[in-house]
């Protein structure tokens, strides 16, 4: 089948052009692309249905002005950026998605998905947001509904055995990723947070299981043999937690590492939170096992968010953390509100805690770096 490129393709920078051609190539070989936004997306099901899942989370302010022609100004920059990319045909993965999969997580995303559906077919999974009302049954039913939808819409068959196989593979990917991140438990850590984050981002756009695992293993081996073990000797060990931070790394992680700190652990979506829990692949009901796995993710859309409150103290100990920096995106009600509870938790652990709220612009970079510097002077 032939696929066409967006009209303004020739105006794009080389890296973006390459991205478009790569996905176009994948589609022309019969590949199907699912655009996803969230750590809650049950990728096992998409794998079993023969989809390649790619993250569509927007990390740049480039498309925000376009998005603001439809969305409110005072809204999370990630949501605006993602929507803006869809609206302007600037993201190859959004452009070539056969399906976008969203979850009812935060209000902003929920409402944005309704509008996104007018640009690209968007399927919504209804995520239960608490633990008191039998969330496993609700979420398992949602996953079954999703399986049925995919089977009917895309004329595929998804068997339990296929799901089990996909879950085994995803578990291997998670374990391999975790092993790479766990190198940072060493004192001093072999990598800076900026370097570690780059490895995590790179793996997100690799299309097959085998390639992903090979790439993660190769990265780990290369760190073990080549990294300068003393480049962060004496640096204060920082844990970063909060919202997805791919769009604000320079103002936060880079600033921490320019002020005598080193980020040893990302609790955020693309970090440990996404890799920590495994699916019980031997369980009798594999769909239920997948559902149970995802419900252990400590995201602030859960109320109360007990998993995050359990995870933070554990990581503080495992990674010998000297200070916690919470980075939240502007207008993210769930995370920004939760800072109060996380501060109380940090106080009880006797670990200094700093929370900042920021967006994708550069206007507050001076203020943020002062805060990061002062926080490190305090440690």
């Amino acid at each position: 089948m032939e696929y066409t490129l967006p009209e303004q393709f020739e105006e794009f920078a080389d890296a973006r052009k390459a991205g478009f051609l790569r996905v176009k190539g994948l589609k022309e070989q019969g590949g199907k692309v699912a655009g996803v936004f969230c750590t809650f997306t049950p990728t096992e099901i998409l794998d079993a249905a023969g989809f390649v899942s790619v993250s569509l989370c927007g990390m740049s302010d480039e498309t925000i002005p376009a998005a603001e022609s439809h969305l409110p100004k005072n809204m999370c920059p990630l949501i605006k950026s993602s929507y803006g990319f869809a609206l302007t045909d600037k993201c190859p993965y959004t452009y070539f998605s056969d399906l976008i999969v969203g979850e009812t997580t935060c209000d902003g995303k929920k409402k944005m998905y309704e509008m996104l559906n007018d640009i690209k077919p968007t399927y919504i999974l209804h995520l239960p947001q608490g633990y008191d009302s039998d969330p496993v049954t609700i979420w398992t039913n949602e996953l079954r509904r999703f399986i049925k939808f995919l089977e009917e819409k895309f004329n595929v068959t998804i068997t339990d055995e296929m799901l089990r196989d996909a879950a085994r593979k995803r578990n291997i990917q998670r374990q391999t990723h975790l092993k790479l991140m766990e190198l940072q438990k060493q004192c001093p850590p072999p990598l800076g947070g900026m370097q570690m984050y780059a490895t995590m981002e790179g793996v997100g756009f690799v299309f097959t299981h085998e390639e992903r695992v090979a790439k993660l293993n190769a990265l780990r081996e290369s760190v073990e043999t080549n990294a300068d073990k003393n480049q962060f000797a004496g640096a204060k060990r920082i844990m970063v937690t909060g919202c997805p931070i791919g769009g604000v790394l320079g103002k936060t992680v880079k600033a921490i590492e320019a002020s005598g700190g080193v980020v040893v652990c990302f609790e955020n979506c693309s970090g440990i939170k996404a890799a920590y829990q495994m699916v019980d692949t031997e369980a009798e009901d594999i769909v239920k096992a997948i559902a149970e796995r995802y419900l252990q993710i400590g995201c602030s859309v859960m109320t109360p968010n007990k998993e995050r409150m359990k995870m933070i103290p554990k990581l503080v100990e495992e990674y010998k953390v000297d200070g916690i920096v919470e980075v939240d995106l502007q207008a993210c009600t769930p995370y920004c509100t939760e800072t109060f509870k996380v501060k109380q938790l940090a106080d009880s652990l006797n670990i200094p805690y700093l929370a900042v709220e920021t967006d994708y612009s550069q206007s507050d970079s001076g203020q943020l770096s002062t805060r990061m510097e002062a926080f490190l002077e305090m440690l």
Partner: protein
Amino acid sequence: MKYFIGIDIGSTCAKTIVMDENKQIVHRLLQPTGWSSVDTAQAIYAKLEEMGINMKEANVVATGYGRISVPYADKCVTEITCHGRGTCFVYGSQDLTVIDIGGQDTKLISVEAGMVKDFIMNDKCSAGTGRFLEVMANTLGLRPEELCQLAAQGSGVSISSMCTVFAESEVISLIGRGEPKQNIAFAVVDSIVKKVASQAGRLTLGKTVCLTGGLCEFDYLCESLGKKLNVTVNTNPDGRYAGAIGAALSAMNVRK
């Protein structure tokens, strides 16, 4: 004589403190930062030399948002650490809470045993800062200190917007409807106090609360802040130099 110099280049004012080996303050300089902190830093250098200080020998620590624009500084330290240290020196206490209302940001710093334990700074927004007061004073055709004096005689009006731009238009409509100036001034100060108090809710306030920064000489502001927080807010003429004093003290630890 060896000197220890602290230079605090803020968004509005540049403050310089010269200390001798016995931690005695021998000079205080104050000047507007202007549009170029690099030029300001050079002007301070020239002025200090003129005063007979051997700048090649002196230890210099720079702080404030313009700290990176002081090429002759031996070290840069953030204004959070410097304000903590300087305030302890000015008030002779090692355990206190600093409220610094600066030109472009407001910080609350909790200090225990002379060390910064925790701090809060406003997010990218000028509500509750010196700039907010300055803009409102301008709109009312007053100097900031006049606004604060006048506010003491006002009452009964409040500004609901925290945003400087929106609050300005709110003030303009108050002027338009003929509200007496002192009542508007009251509302302006009240708005700053409320904003600072809500920030204070995220920090454990110590027994001694000290105001630093350019607004610390405005008695009425201190008084209203104290009432709102239910503490005594201490002020001192050296309060606006707290950051520079902290920097000068830091300069004593610099080895050259």
